[in-house]
């Protein structure tokens, strides 16, 4: 973590190339230092951001006045930072009976802000409120709704309720930073009185990092996979030397408790959709021994998407892993107790995140919590199935080797697809795919759940969500297309993306067939597509010409829907 002084120097650096992301910071206390820390953090993370900072304490005026500087700036993201201290002053100023309404009033302000017509299409990030006990009632405050402790907690809970209902509202969890580091480190009383600062210089980089984590996730940069070493990482000791009875795991032997609790954390990550893999220098049978034979093992082999145990270098093995999973190295976290192995992996694969795991296993979880590695923007229940899907994929790879050619193999899979529009059930997954898909993504437009609902509500759009199922299992919703009418005859492919776990199955041909028949059914005769290059989507650079589109220039391609012959593929529409 960079210190404030370093961030301040970075903040002066150039913001990078291309069109900057426009972010506005509104606060009810002095925000210059927070803004400086944010600017430095954005530069440090290669985020090209133009940050607008409103004058002190103009939140309402800037939001509500159509001729305000904020409206003129036209931000894509609005960050609202209101301090617990201002809240405490407001609490003090209220008549006693009105104190019980403090949280409700603030929540209704935030709810109405999120619901402003002007906010439509923009994201709102709200810092929550670090708890403070004014000790007016002591612990009895927990029985008194008018107490500050009651109100600030109610406010934070209310923000969670609100955020779970508003797809474009995200909470930046400042209170969790205070829970970790303590109020005395967060709040500099001497500087607050003399300069109105509510966050200490030491805390500013952490607060800015939490906001940047959300913004990176909004831009599609987040971790998808956890790669684990085994010996002295997942259990204490060396399985090849100490044997099944000698390793430390569980509450019996040595510091086994630390490893058990680490495994419980890994399993929770797996349940929330993080792909968990093992890369170990071991014989495979020995390495798998504890998974199948140790009574205190929390993780089972079913929790591990890909298990690699051999004597190759870890950097080479992680490269193999990357090919199987088809995700970027920058989406991976590698955990290993050995500084030597960590350095080899860092040198071989600079993009991967390799935390400096503390030597004492007891310190590791708290350290890992502090890194906030697994920020996300969405969660859907299908996330929990991701590991199962990768395991099925490994089964498909083994099965495919028994066929002479690919066509014969694809025909044998019995692939069916459920094709539908966007609805309440699939909206979270559709939004998530627009945020996560980097490789097979023609224009890489990121949408929130709110955006997806808006697109679906417009009858002039054709929205397609496609699943894929075969004899090995259900991949779930894997492809999305959004077509917008540009005139009476023409549809423009605003979004076409596909999950990389269904590459090379003919899904792109099937999706195009579906697009064309939907276009014809709606009375359109032309389809226009475009390719916008990113560092990650080179695989679809030539997609349109390869599917029969004609180049129109400027990276645009056209297809005559009326003379289109459906492309051959082995996927059929699922019977409902």
């Amino acid at each position: 973590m960079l210190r404030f002084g370093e961030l301040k120097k970075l903040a002066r650096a150039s913001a990078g190339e291309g069109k900057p992301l426009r972010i506005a910071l509104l606060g009810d206390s002095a925000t210059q230092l927070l803004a400086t820390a944010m600017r430095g953090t954005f530069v440090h993370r290669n985020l090209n951001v133009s940050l607008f900072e409103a004058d002190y304490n103009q939140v309402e005026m800037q939001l509500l006045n159509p001729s305000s500087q904020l409206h003129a700036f036209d931000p894509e993201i609005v960050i609202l930072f209101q301090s617990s201290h201002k809240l405490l002053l407001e609490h003090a100023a209220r008549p006693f009976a009105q104190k019980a309404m403090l949280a409700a009033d603030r929540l209704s302000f935030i709810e109405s802000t999120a619901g402003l017509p002007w906010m439509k299409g923009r994201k709102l990030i709200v810092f929550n409120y670090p708890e403070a006990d004014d000790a007016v009632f002591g612990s009895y405050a927990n029985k008194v709704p008018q107490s500050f402790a009651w109100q600030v907690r109610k406010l934070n809970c209310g923000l969670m309720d609100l955020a779970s209902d508003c797809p474009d509202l995200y909470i930046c969890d400042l209170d969790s930073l205070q829970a970790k580091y303590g109020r005395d480190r967060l709040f500099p009383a001497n500087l607050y009185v003399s300069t109105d600062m509510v966050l200490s210089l030491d805390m500013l980089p952490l607060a800015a990092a939490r906001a940047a984590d959300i913004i990176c996730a909004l831009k599609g940069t987040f971790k998808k996979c956890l790669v684990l070493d085994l010996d002295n990482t997942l259990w204490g000791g060396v399985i090849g030397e100490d044997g099944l009875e000698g390793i430390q795991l569980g509450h019996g032997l040595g510091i086994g408790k630390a490893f058990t609790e680490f495994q419980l954390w890994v399993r929770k990550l797996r349940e929330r959709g993080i792909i968990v893999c093992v890369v170990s220098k071991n014989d495979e049978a020995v390495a798998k021994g504890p998974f199948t034979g140790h009574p205190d093992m929390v993780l089972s082999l079913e929790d591990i998407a890909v298990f690699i145990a051999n004597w190759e270098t870890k950097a080479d093995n992680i490269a193999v892993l990357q090919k199987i999973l088809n995700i970027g190295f920058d989406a991976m976290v590698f955990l290993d107790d050995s500084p030597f192995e960590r350095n080899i992996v860092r040198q071989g694969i600079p993009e991967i995140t390799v935390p400096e795991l503390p030597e004492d296993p007891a310190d590791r979880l708290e350290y890992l919590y502090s890194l906030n590695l697994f920020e996300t923007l969405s969660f859907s229940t299908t996330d929990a199935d991701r590991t199962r899907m990768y395991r099925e994929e490994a089964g498909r790879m083994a099965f495919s080797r028994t066929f002479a050619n690919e066509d014969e193999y694809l025909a044998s899979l019995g692939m069916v697809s459920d094709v539908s529009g966007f609805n309440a059930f699939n909206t979270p997954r559709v939004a998530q795919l627009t945020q996560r898909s980097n490789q097979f993504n023609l224009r890489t437009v990121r949408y929130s759940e709110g955006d997806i609902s808006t697109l679906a509500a417009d009858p002039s759009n054709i929205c397609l969500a496609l699943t894929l199922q075969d004899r090995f299992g259900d991949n779930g919703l894997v492809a999305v297309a959004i077509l917008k009418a540009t005139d009476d005859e023409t549809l423009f492919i605003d979004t076409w993306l596909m999950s990389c776990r269904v590459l090379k199955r003919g899904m792109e041909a099937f999706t195009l067939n579906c697009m064309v028949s939907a276009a014809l059914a709606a009375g359109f005769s032309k389809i226009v597509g475009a390719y916008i290059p990113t560092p990650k989507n080179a695989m679809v650079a030539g997609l349109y010409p390869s599917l029969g589109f004609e180049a129109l220039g400027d990276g645009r391609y056209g297809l005559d829907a009326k003379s289109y012959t459906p492309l051959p593929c082995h996927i059929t529409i699922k019977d409902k």
Partner: protein
Amino acid sequence: MTRKDIYPRLGAIMCEVFDLDSVDINDTTTADDIPEWDSLSHIQLVVAVEKAFGIKFSSREIMRWQNVGELADSVIAKIG
């Protein structure tokens, strides 16, 4: 301990905070004499001096200093 004993360390801290190669400070130096010394970097300076000397300034002190000499007096009073 006198103000002059403090200045070399104070100067080094100021160079670090204000990102300068050298500063020339004396009893009457104020923020007006150093362009990089603004209200934001002043907060950095306060925190950096607190950390370097292992002390904590009171809000009254932070508000009261008129020049570098008085800042040095606050440090001396705390470290003895």
